[in-house]
């Protein structure tokens, strides 16, 4: 059992990973649902471009995404310095930066899941709600959103799981700082780089697998429950 008790560094990386991934989900969910709705429902020039932009992190090497973030959002980057000046928000070399990198990397998965379920919503139901006196925004929150909940949920789980496994963009953008940006994968990588780290690396490996399994199981259970609710 001795081999399985985590040391402080490992606990810290696990806690940080959950924290960073949680914020990545919370931050990207409203934007993700919005972008998914725009892509599913609106036809406008530039839609293909927006679609491509959203999916870019999926196909680019993570290092490229991380470096782009560093250039744009870093202390001296155009966006980074602007945010620092206006609302005092800084993403450079702290956990917020790690959350941002995770969110950007997981964003395409979130948008895809939500968009697919928006496309399956019967727009006739939304029209019916309009004839019953509901304005478009109310229709969205009382009809569309409840009907796409299974998709949103799938998106959230995917987004969370992808955030937990984020490595390349994070290490490039905000480096590998214990307690700030050294999440589970980064801690694992660090352990593999030092002599005698094998046992710790193995423990983190097992934790990663367990986390992923729990996430997938939870999503499956919740999806079933929602499905049951929709079918009566």
């Amino acid at each position, binding site marked *: 059992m001795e081999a399985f008790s985590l040391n402080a560094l490992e606990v810290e990386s696990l806690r940080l990973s959950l924290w960073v991934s949680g914020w990545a989900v919370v931050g990207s969910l409203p934007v993700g649902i919005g972008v998914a709705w725009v892509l599913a429902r609106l036809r406008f020039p530039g839609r293909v471009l927006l679609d491509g932009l959203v999916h870019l992190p999926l196909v680019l090497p993570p290092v490229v995404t991380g470096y782009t973030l560093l250039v744009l959002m870093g202390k001296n980057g155009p966006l980074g310095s602007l945010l620092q000046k206006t609302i005092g928000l800084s993403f450079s070399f702290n956990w917020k930066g790690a959350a941002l990198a995770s969110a950007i990397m997981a964003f395409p998965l979130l948008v895809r899941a939500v968009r697919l379920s928006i496309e399956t919503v019967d727009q*006739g*139901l939304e029209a*019916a*709600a309009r*004839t019953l*006196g*509901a304005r478009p925004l109310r229709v969205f929150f*009382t009809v569309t959103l409840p*009907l796409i909940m299974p998709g949103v949920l799938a998106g959230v789980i995917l987004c969370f799981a992808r955030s937990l496994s984020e490595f390349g963009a994070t290490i490039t953008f905000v480096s590998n700082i214990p307690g700030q940006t050294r999440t589970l994968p980064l801690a694992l990588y660090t352990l593999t780089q030092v002599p005698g780290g094998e046992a710790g690396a193995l423990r983190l490996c097992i934790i990663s697998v367990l986390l992923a399994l729990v996430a997938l199981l939870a999503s499956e259970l919740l999806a079933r429950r929602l499905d049951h609710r929709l079918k*009566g």
Partner: protein
Amino acid sequence: MIDIQVARQQGSFRVDAGFRTPNAGITALFGLSGAGKTSVINMIAGLSRPDKGRIVVQERVLFDSDRGIDLPPEERSVGYIFQDGRLFPHLTVRSNLTYGMKLTPRSRRYIGFDQVVDLLGIEHLLDRRPGRLSGGEKQRVAIGRALLTSPRLLLMDEPLASLDQARKSEVIPFIGKLPAALSIPIIYVTHSTDEVLHLADDIVLMHCGKSVVAGKMPEVIHRPEFQEVIGRQEAFSVASMAVKNHDQSVGLTLLQGPAACLQVPLMKCAVGKPIRVRIRARDVAIALEPPSNTSVQNILEATIERVDMLASSLVDVRLNAGFPLLARVTIKAKNDLKLTVGQKVFALIKSMSISAGALDDGSGSSCSFG
């Protein structure tokens, strides 16, 4: 008055409809599939926008292209019952019913929750979800949901089309009693002559995107434009009558019209009940003298008002037999009898061939041949 003038180009299909209809009763928007009926009511509901036109419901302008008025659907106070029900699957029947009611200011409501539940007989369904309802139950809930918004006009888009015969007979009585119970006008889209026969007070005939004729039932049925659209094979006349008496011993029911009587196979319904019967043109024969020793029960004196030659060597003879009656005979028969306009003849109708349609009559009490 409900005043509809709408034009809209949809791809290569052009909808161009104009009609006025009273503020009461059921107006059937009748036509074959693809005649543009649903397009018209979608424009009335505000779900699609006419290129040009004007929509006025009870003195309220909902749309006017000249004055730039175009109210969104949620501000039109027009209830819409869709062919497929469109109940919200994630809500219970109760929440479906109250969805629109809660959005209607209390001061504007003219009908309450309990009243609607009673009227439609859906009390026992309130806690279920739409997924567990039968087709007929779904449509009744959909009607209730629309009614609870206290609309000034109710649109129904073939509400019975997705139901089987038994379910249709289940829903029809509820629709039939709405105009009287709530004094709300209904525009009812259908391609079924049975439903027109049972429910309509007025008809607007649509064909290829255009409104062809509009008027009162059953007069419009006898207009040549109407017979043209429903197809020569199907040509029929409609007589509005009332049940006078039943003769159990011979198995006949006597129907009394304003100027003629008809004998039909025994019906199950109350004496005095108004009823519309349909007589197909090809089931009406013509004789110059009243035949004796015949099995035909209905021998009516009639005057020929019009003779129309059809392309297929057939002749349509329009008779006045106390009600407008259409008879279809061959050219040979026409020549042998020398049928001409103004001539007095006898119309022969087998009682078996007179039908009250395949549906119930809307009273809730069964009123069918049996």
